[in-house]
């Protein structure tokens, strides 16, 4: 039922921000990267439809599709069993032989928000929730500040962590006293352009269709994303038997083509994480894709007053949160020809720090690791199914 694929674009990609594109001035449509998982979910869902049925318009109007397909993709108004379990930027492993059926890829993780860069050095440090800080702030009640007890200038870190970097991060295992990561474990700054993607702006002109001429005075630019060779998306799907082992899908704006094939990845080692959680009775959740929560930044199962909550028999107390700027996610409903409502999501890379009150490390990992914590609301259903809120468990 589960299928892991590696999607590689054949050309540039376009993941447009939500800004309308009208008016009498020059415009730039910017791209966001990586795209929300729902973009990839929708692309694969459409792919199944076109592969097995082929008539999008008919599907939209409620024509009956083969039952095995309907089971997986659902109807124009409801989701089927297809589920996006994981979506990450990934790159081919260098040793990858082309004869293998499943291409081996390395996963790249969005930089967690509790990592800070020591300004001007390119080195990174890990912030920890602090107890009894002398500085009082207007943090939400009960939350502790995230702190590094060194007299250095810090700034927000951006970029990606390699698999080794993520393992080190979740293990809470510093590379050296000066630098939490080894240099090659972080892809940030200029290295992003060398190793992951570049932005390309293309300028077009507004054409007057009636007169078949160029309209004077209007230029528009569209920003595309060009992934480096060997870089793509790793997506793990569940609930599908029909998805072929390889094929071409149309991804994002302009329906740009991308090829996919089966992929395999190595799993994160859990032993050290488990051991540390057991010893320290503390754990953290890091989101690798954006998550929707009913109460904005706060998951609904966490009590507002006590900051305590239970999930799958594990009882925890929230003590700190490293939250990035919320992202608005909506999109366009092709079937209804109507924009979907925009919701504020907690961005990927955000980290929730917990104390473990009841349950052991195994139970905690069972409850949270490689699961979706995203919640769904009536106006934005099935966020977990679409790949939102995928989280990993780490020690702190």
């Amino acid at each position, binding site marked *: 039922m589960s299928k892991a694929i590696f999607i590689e674009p054949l050309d540039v990609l376009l993941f447009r921000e*939500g800004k309308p594109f009208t008016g009498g001035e020059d415009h730039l449509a910017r791209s966001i990267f990586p795209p929300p998982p729902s973009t990839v979910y929708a692309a694969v869902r459409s792919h199944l439809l076109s592969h097995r049925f082929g008539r999008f318009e008919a599907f939209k109007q409620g024509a009956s599709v083969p039952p095995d397909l309907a089971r997986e993709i659902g109807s124009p108004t409801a989701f089927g069993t297809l589920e996006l379990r994981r979506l990450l930027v990934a790159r081919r492993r260098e040793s990858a032989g082309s004869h293998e059926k499943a291409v081996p890829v390395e996963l790249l993780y969005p930089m967690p928000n509790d990592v800070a860069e020591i300004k001007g050095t390119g080195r990174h440090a890990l912030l920890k929730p602090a107890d009894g800080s002398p500085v009082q702030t207007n943090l939400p009640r009960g939350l502790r500040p995230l702190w590094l007890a060194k007299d250095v200038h810090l700034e927000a870190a951006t970029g990606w962590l390699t698999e080794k970097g993520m393992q080190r991060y979740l293990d809470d295992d510093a590379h050296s006293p000066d630098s939490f990561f080894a240099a090659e474990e972080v892809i940030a700054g200029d290295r992003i352009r060398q190793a992951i993607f570049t932005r390309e702006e293309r300028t077009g002109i507004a054409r007057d269709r009636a007169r078949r001429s160029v309209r004077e005075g*209007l230029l528009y630019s569209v920003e595309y994303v060009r992934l480096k060779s060997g870089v793509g998306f790793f997506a793990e799907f569940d609930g599908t038997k029909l998805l072929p082992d390889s094929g071409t899908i149309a991804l994002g704006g302009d329906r740009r083509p991308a090829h996919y094939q089966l992929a395999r990845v190595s799993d994160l080692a859990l032993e050290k994480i488990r051991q540390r959680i057991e010893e320290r009775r503390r754990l953290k959740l890091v989101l690798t894709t954006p998550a929707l929560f009913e109460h*904005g930044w706060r998951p609904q199962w966490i009590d507002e007053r006590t900051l305590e909550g239970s999930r799958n028999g594990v009882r925890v107390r929230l003590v700190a949160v490293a939250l990035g700027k919320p992202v608005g996610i909506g999109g366009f409903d092709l079937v209804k020809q109507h924009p979907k409502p925009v919701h504020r999501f907690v961005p990927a890379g955000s980290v929730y720090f917990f104390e473990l009150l009841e349950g052991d490390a195994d139970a905690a990992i069972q409850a949270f690791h490689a699961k979706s914590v995203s919640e769904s609301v009536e106006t934005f259903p099935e966020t977990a199914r679409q790949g939102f809120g995928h989280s990993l468990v780490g020690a702190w």
Partner: protein
Amino acid sequence: MDYRAVMGSVDEVVDELRKDYGDDLEKLYLALWRELLPRLEAKRERDGMGQLWEVLPADTRVPDHSVWEHRRVTSAIAGALPKPAFLLFALGPVQSFIATARKTQDLWAGSYLLSFLSWQAMKVVAEAWGPDSIIFPDLCGQPFVDLWLREEKGLKLTEEPSMEALSSPTLPNRFLAILPTDEAAQIAQRVVENVQDVFKNICFTVKRRVEQVAGITPDDEWNRIWQRQVENFLETYWAVLPWEEDYKQFLETFKTWCSPQQEPWEFASIVEQYEKAGYTPNIGTCYSKLYALTERGLGSRKATRDFARQVEPHFKCTMFAELEPVHLAEHTDFGKLRQFWNTRMLPRLPLLRSGERLSAIALTKRLAAAYYFKVPKSEGGLEWNIETSFPSTSTVAVSSFKERILEALSDGNMQLFDRMNRYVTRVRSVLGDERAKSAPLSRVAEAAARAHRRIPDLPWEFARLDGDWLFEESFNKRDLQRELIERWKDDPAGLESARAEVLKTLSELLDFARHQGLGQPSRYYAVLAMDGDQMGKWLAGEFAPHLREILHPSVWNELKLDGEWQKLGEMRRPLNPSLHLAISKALRDFSLSTVRRIVEDEHLGKLIYAGGDDVMAFVSLGDLPEVMRKLRAFFSGALTGDENQVDWITGSGFARTETGFQLTMGMAATASMGVAIAHHMQDLGQTLNAARAEEKRAKDVLGRNAFSIALMKRSGGHESFGARWYYVRDGSLYVDTLQCLIEWRDAFAKDDVSPKFAYVFREEARALSALPHEAVGREAHRLLGRHLSARLSKDQKNELSGRLLDDGLLRLFESGVSLDDLAKFLDLAVFLGREENR
């Protein structure tokens, strides 16, 4: 100088204040804060103090800050005793306020609103504990504050803030205050509440007005959208740090929370040396560390950007992509929504443009000036006299052309008058007054005022035309038909013939201008963004001078004989509150007066924002290098003489003013600048981002104290040239980069050098780079020789190539600027030297 005369002035001023304010202690206190110095300065001729009143040292042995900073900080701390605390507050989201802009008008409005809300935050503190308790920014003389002192506090300030001053955003989005520990957190909470309340009030005043003007009967849907968007928009962050009484204990606390990265810890050694030298340190000695810890606290607060749930259904605002445009319940689909905006809102709200559909936040940004700040108090507004229209990008682009035309008109060129008259009349008849207008730049308005003395009205009307209307392509038939549908609905055919007329009069005007040597209007303009380098470290005292440098020389000559003092002399002076305030004050003078004077009075430019060390402005290309160079020089006082000549090496660190000295950041401070030169139709957000990106490049890639200019040609291609402001060799100035650019620009403009030189140089740059330096010089001379104008004499040619190459370009090359970059430098000079861009 007569000591008695000086003290006589002090007595007189105190008497005057007493006479003006009687026993009203609050007024007296506010007057001492705001009026004492200007009143004393007014007596400078009589008491012989001349320009010295402002720079009187607080301590003659350590003359690094004035008595004015000293007394204000003392007053701030005295008010907060026995246990003072820091409050650091920040307001956001800055990006959404400022960069989310489709028009220059929105850009100004966003910064203005943010600056105003920032003042509303500070006002809570000023009301509760006095304006002196705010250390950063320096509020003294800020237009919002002066208005508050006059109108709400009853001070008799002689000058009302000018319309210009009151219309400009000059306050940063954060402040630092010293407050009593017991009350600091409470006050912070009140600050948050007040900012939210004021913002709501502004939004809902705009809302009511929109309802009135557009004839909307609000329903639940309409109200809900406003409520939801307004409530969730602002972000407020604060941090409070109480000052521990025992400084030794605080140093321990600091070590626990910010473990020093040096061994031994210099700061602790200084404090120790103080003790040994017989000074008694106290918690104030640890000021810089208290401040550093507070900054860290706020930084950590911002790492948790908590937010409430917000769902924005339906279609998207054309300014804020994540918000819904306001509408009524009946506008359920896109067609109805569009119709509502096109037929109800657009015709009744002249500040909207066709195709726009705005959220509550965007509407507030667009309309707050007209519907809140200027509105009578009886209708819930402020009744402020502010300039609400802001020049468009094309208006900035064409400003130097307009200035030349107006000058020529002043000189009585009657043929020009005829052509201008026909053109202006036609433009206004096609477009109507409202659509044709844009605010002129100050210098253009001045030129119009001069011409007006000779020829009434026409100069004004010409000055006020939007720059767009000097370009043929702006009179695109289809766009005009769409935009002017209401105006011409009774006579659609009339629009076409009027359009033909206006195009004819425009080309007559432009042709005439060319023949008269008045040039052509430019389609390009520049945005500049400047920022002090490493201001965080300045404010944390990391760049403070060594103690021996700030002691009075005669004091140091005595003390240096003592071994303990000798050690101390080599240490950095810990940041103290007066020094902190002196920095605030230098930045205040820079942002409140210097920047405006340079950008708007002395040159063709318009300030978008100037607060603290941060400056953003539009500049006409004709003045760009001059403006850049002056801004940087005035930032650190790299100036000499009464005329403020730029002097990068031996500048005084002060700027001379008509009445005295102005404090600057000082010669050790540096600043970097990014510039984007863009076509007036280029997406504004993109242009602003480009300017910021160039600023970042100047800092990160070029190593600070540098500038970088991106030339974004509309034909595509985006090239940037960056370099240090100047290069030094053997302790003296080797080359002044912008001065060199100016000389090349002028040489191209005068046709002394053919623009082909730039092209040939670029072609050869790669081949040249393999050659030894000497050979490069020879080859450059050979190439230039072939491109010098034939009308120059041999001597002139020699002088020119010596100045342009030996003292200019080749010195940049020797200083490490690559040939490839020099090719870009020349391209830029050619571009700036073109007829229309001068």
